[in-house]
């Protein structure tokens, strides 16, 4: 089943066309990495998919339901009430975590499920505690984000997103604010999630990270998808000239 389907999305900031006709779909249980140089539009694509940015034209479906329809070449979003429903369909993990600094680790994780999803408090707390323990943060429940390392903060952020029971989890460069040694920490978490068939879309420019976790790699450049396929094909035997140039620059 296709959890996410984006068709012919276009997005322009002022005079700069950032996304020029992009279509992607993500199957249930699939892990997709989006690679590409800075300014290729990969973050904008993710921000459109998570509704932090509105697309100019194109359509988007979550779980087969239209979030954005195309009316005469213009994107038309679902009503405010329907959007609320779609917001709970996905989770997003930010580059710089964006944890709430005035909340403890546990409160960061449980507050939204209790207050925006109106779920049972006891159930949410129990599940959150369990998840944080599994993330190796069982002894940090009462800590504030500022008392944690970057890797720990990112694990809290991932737990916070997972606590909403999303069907898809998006990652916006989840390791670029971290030291290289902490990157491995997050990679391990993502691998564990992949093993449990969590559907994930990861924007990154760490090739090894993408290779290590994804079923499919999408390579973007200048607002287009220029190559996609299995990581071993796209990363090790790229057909496209620009992909090859980009990968060479990174490995040299």
């Amino acid at each position: 089943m296709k959890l996410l389907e984006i068709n012919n999305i276009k997005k322009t900031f002022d005079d700069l066309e950032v996304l020029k006709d992009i279509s992607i779909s993500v199957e249930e249980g699939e892990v997709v990495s989006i690679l590409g140089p800075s300014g290729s539009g990969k973050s904008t694509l993710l921000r459109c998919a998570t509704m932090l940015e509105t697309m100019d034209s194109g359509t988007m479906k979550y779980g087969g339901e239209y979030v954005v329809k195309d009316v005469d070449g213009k994107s038309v979003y679902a009503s405010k009430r329907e959007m609320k429903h779609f917001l709970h369909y996905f989770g997003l993990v930010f580059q710089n975590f964006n944890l709430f600094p005035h909340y403890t680790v546990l409160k960061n994780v449980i507050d939204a499920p209790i207050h925006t999803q109106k779920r049972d408090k006891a159930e949410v707390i129990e599940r959150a505690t369990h998840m944080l323990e599994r993330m190796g943060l069982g002894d940090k429940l009462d800590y504030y984000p500022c008392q944690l390392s970057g890797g720990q903060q990112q694990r809290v952020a991932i737990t916070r997103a997972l606590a909403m029971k999303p069907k898809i989890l998006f990652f916006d460069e989840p390791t670029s604010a971290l030291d290289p040694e902490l990157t491995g920490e997050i990679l391990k978490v993502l691998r564990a999630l992949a093993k449990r068939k969590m559907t994930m879309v990861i924007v990154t420019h760490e090739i090894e990270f993408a290779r290590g976790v994804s079923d499919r790699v999408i390579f973007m450049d200048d607002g287009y998808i220029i190559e996609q396929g299995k990581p071993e094909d796209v990363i090790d035997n790229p057909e496209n000239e620009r992909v090859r140039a980009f990968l060479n620059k990174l490995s040299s």
Partner: protein
Amino acid sequence: MPLYEFGDIMKNIKKPSKNKGIIAIAVMATLLVPSLMTACGVSAEASDGFGWFFNVIVQLSDGMLASLELFALTLLFSMPLGLLICFARRSRFKIVELIAKFYISIMRGTPLMLQLLVVYFGPYFVFKVPLSTEYRFYAAIIGFSLNYAAYFAEIYRAGIEAVPGGQYEAAKVLGYTRRQTFMKIVFPQMVRHILPPVTNEVITLVKDTSLAFAIAFVEMFTLAKQISASESNIMPLFVAGLFYYIFNLVVSFVMGQIEKKMNYYSA
């Protein structure tokens, strides 16, 4: 002679071991002495040092209470009003934003004393409402509140804008409504950002209450000037100065405690 009372107070002051405790109690005591003494009907002769000092304080005590009242009520009204103006200033509707901007520029750009005069005499000149003595007090509170609300609005705005955009994005993705986002995520962080400038503003307000003399509202400074003039002695003015200083010590101490409380996290 009230000297024995003074001694008792001094004894009480020495009890707590911590420094800040001593300051706090000393300050409270100084503020309480005048009302206590009035209550006990103590009156001292003006001849010797302490007696004279307490005499002045007794004479000033009504003014002190009036200043305190003015101070407290102004804060009570101007702080929430400032938040409303801040919302207007940040409104999506250009016209609302412009009105708020204009309001703030008038309040910050003209003398507070002039604003007090306008609030006090305005109703008389415009609507021919007869002036009354009681209205002086209300006029002072209205004038101060309107003026301070403008300053608070700008402080709040700075505090809100200091909350990173990522906090709003995280809140949005997690499904918080706009209202929830403000109440749960933005407001608590804003409060922390604004404490130091708010302390500044509150301290200024303590001293600014003396401007109420412009509309002949009898607060402490007005009294001090009268006593000073009638006794041909500058000391009552110094006593008044001491009052403001001690008052502000209390303000700094209290705000310092609140800041410490808010320091449970760092952004």
